[in-house]
């Protein structure tokens, strides 16, 4: 099928793609729920088990590291939540392309993805 501007356009395949990605967003949600319940990931918890006086417990080897492990456990959950949003945006965009009035020659949609990509992409070397 030809799109509004003459490009190839197959709404059925786009809808299927959108649904497949939607399924992945659901799987990431499950992963978030599962990970939120994995308390062992934050098992070395100084505040729960150590001397309640902060300047005491921070002196010990395992505790300084435990603080970072706990923070990383929180960060991975937040990262997964954002990943779920990013996956959902992929699904939303394909669903919009599948609609008759937009199709694959939607320059606004392309611009939206382009802007999003630019906004979300980390500058090279920022975290390395």
């Amino acid at each position, binding site marked *: 099928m030809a799109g509004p501007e003459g490009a190839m356009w197959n709404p059925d395949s786009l809808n299927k793609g959108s649904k497949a990605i939607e399924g992945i967003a659901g799987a990431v949600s499950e992963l978030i729920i599962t990970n939120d319940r994995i308390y062992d990931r934050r098992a070395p918890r100084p505040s729960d088990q*150590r001397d309640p006086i902060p300047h005491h417990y921070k002196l010990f*080897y*395992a505790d300084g*590291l435990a603080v970072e492990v706990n923070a990383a456990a929180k960060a991975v959950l937040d990262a997964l939540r954002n990943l779920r949003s990013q996956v959902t945006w992929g699904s939303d965009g394909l669903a919009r*392309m599948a609609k008759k009035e937009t199709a694959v020659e939607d320059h606004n949609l392309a611009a939206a993805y382009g802007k999003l990509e630019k906004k979300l992409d980390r500058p090279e070397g920022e975290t390395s």
Partner: protein
Amino acid sequence: MNDIDFRGTPYYLDFADHEEVEELLSHWGQKGMKFRWPADDNWEYYQAFEAWGEVCDALLAQLGNNDALKKQFKEMGEKNDGVALDAFVAYWNSIPLQNAREISHSSEVIRGAVWAVNRNLSAFKETAMLSLLDLKKALDDTEGWWWSRWFSIGVDRSEVEKKSRSLVHEFDLGMKPLTSQLEQNVGQARELIVKQKAVLEQIAKPMPKNLGLGP
């Protein structure tokens, strides 16, 4: 003493035959090494290691190695052509897919770091325990020597104390390189975790709203 009971954990059981030096290790660990026995039990790091593994494989299975999804994307590419689809593919590869890989990779690195800490703490405790056993034997021998001389000719008690102090000092000196190595290893693990946490926090930054991507 910490009231957490680690007596059922595998690493505690490794040392269960050495009850005679447990109290000494506890005292020496807290006062001299800033290490609490058995509260600073590495078993917790082993549990953390296992828990960190679960996210890695699951994420890649969903996004990176999902054959059904690859097939669907291939079909979309064959049946559609246009700037919006090109933009979607570029977005998908550079953002969700790349982030999934990075989350998975970071989790794997953190997993390796907590595993290393677990092994280092275990090895340190084992070495400390065995060294303490040697020290105890040497001190017992010294006392035996003192008693035998006491009954025979009488002896200056300060000589025994001097020798005992010397043995303890020797033990402390012997443990210093091990302590230093443990500190270095734990520091390296911390550095790795901090670096990967920064990657995760970048991915977790607040997202833009009202993008107009919906159908």
